[in-house]
């Protein structure tokens, strides 16, 4: 089996799992789904400069070929952003669980007055 097949099916499996998980009704599976999606996208970005093995990532007169360094730089940026975002959404989910007592994603389980009650308190 070629490297391309392996990488492509890994990206496909991660994306499929990610989409399935983000469609769940509770926050924890949704977060796992987002993490899977971000792994899939990192692998995808990595492969977008084509798979070149054992080549330097810089243009060097003595080297015959090179690996495109830009996708690697992009993957680094994407990793940093998705890492930060995962941390944020975990805190957000936890806080909303603690304040509402449920980890559902839907708005139905928040009382209609959830916002108003608190705003009223803040104003007094």
């Amino acid at each position, binding site marked *: 089996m070629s490297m391309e097949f392996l990488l492509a099916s890994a990206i496909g499996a991660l994306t499929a799992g990610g989409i399935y998980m983000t469609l769940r009704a509770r926050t924890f599976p*949704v977060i796992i789904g987002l993490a899977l999606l971000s792994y899939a996208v990192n692998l995808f970005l990595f492969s977008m400069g084509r798979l070149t093995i054992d080549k330097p990532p810089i243009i060097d007169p003595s080297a015959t070929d090179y690996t495109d360094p830009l996708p690697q730089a992009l993957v680094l940026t994407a990793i940093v952003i998705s890492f930060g975002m995962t941390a944020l*959404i975990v805190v957000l989910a936890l806080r909303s669980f603690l304040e509402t007592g449920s980890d559902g994603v839907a*708005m139905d389980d928040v009382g209609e007055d959830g916002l108003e009650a608190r705003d009223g308190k803040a104003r007094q």
Partner: protein
Amino acid sequence: MSHWIVVPTVLPALTAACLVLFARDNLFLQRVISVVATVALVVLTLGLYRLADDGELRVYLLSNWPAPFGILQVLDRLSATMLLLTACLALVVIVYAINGWDRRGRHFHPLFQFQLLGLNGAFLTGDFFNLFVFFEVMLIASYGLMLHGGGPRRLKAGFQYVTINLIGSTLFLIAVGIIYAVTGTLNMADLAVKASQVATGDVALLRTGALLLFMVFALKAAMVPLHWWLPTTYAAASAPVAALFAIMTKVGAYCILRMYGLVFGPDAGPLALVAEPWVIPAAMVTLAIGAIGVLASRRLLDLACFAAVASMGTLLIAIGLFDEVGVTAALYYLVHSTVAGAALFLLVDLIAIRRGKARDTLSAAAPFPRDYVYGALFFLAAIATVGLPPLSGFLGKLLLLDATMTTPHAAAIWTVVLGSSFLMLVGFSRAGSVLFWKSAAQPAPAAQEDVRRRAVPTLAAATLIGATVLLSVLAAPVSRALGETAHQALDTRGYVEAVIGTIKTASVTGL
């Protein structure tokens, strides 16, 4: 090379950092710094607007890296207009926010400045991946701002908002990956050239990338079927934040115009106007859903949210024409709907505070002191939003209808625009009559508690409504200037020549 071009991104970044580092615990100092920085931004963007007004396209190479390798910012009439609009809106919103809203949670001002950094960067950049980065800056700040004030409802809505935008960012990266894999460039001008020369075997792949990217921008612009996040998010956000978010959806519309009018414009060979078949039909459904939502709303806040969806529909119909007349109408409507939408959100908050327990529900409640002032302001805001003469909403829709005259969709567009205006008129009239006339008939509360409230927030909302009046009075010069902006925004050849020309001179001086 004028260094002023980079200042709209540097100034909010430094201000935000100063706020976090030196004024963390001093709200008064935070307010002073934030207002001063925003005033400076208005002056600066006004200067940039005048600079761009000569019709020349200015390119700023960051660190003077030759452009296909480095990142560049491009100042043209369109980006200057968007910068000026953002700065003016931000000033009104910050004046509104410093009268109490910024006290409800920590770090309002730094987040606000980071939001401005993201917005300004997205309007200025000439590079795809840099656009992604500024989108992220903008979104991360907006997560914080949206949650400002806390409470279970905001947290739940915030989780949904963050999730949908993270999925949007994932799609953005996939699209950027595909486009880079096919063309080998992330520079917008370079891409415009390479898209027209793409090999036949790669056309399908590049089309996939371009349309995935379109989906991301459609998500930001709240275009059907990707609009459901907007009413929930805006209704849960605090009033000044919702008012600032009026410009956030416009970023999506701006990117659609940039990417599918300019980069994948009529000259892009096999990918010419790749998004065109999708924009107008989806925009018409967006407008219809917005109007029906306005009619179905039981709270004033929901009404304002669906009016925002409807205004995005109208704006995107005009952009979807991708010709000079259509884009002129779109830009006029963009300025109008940003100002009117923000005014409506501020007004809803002002009215809801004064109605006590009844808040913004569309039901009769005891009249509040000086309700005639808010009634009059709501009346003007409703006229502007619905699009009745004489205010700018009417002129914007008139320009749009005039621009569609010769297109094949004319009959459908006229039906949807006029029909939805009628539905919104009914919705707004009902809301206004229940809130002010039916409430006036209610018995006044026995002990009228006369709470002293500051006049400044009301003045801020009134300023925005005054701006729509001004936009209507100055319609002729404004639409003439926007016509020139539209001409430049669709001129792919001029854009490419300006950027590629700079690349050549820079690589001579740089190497």
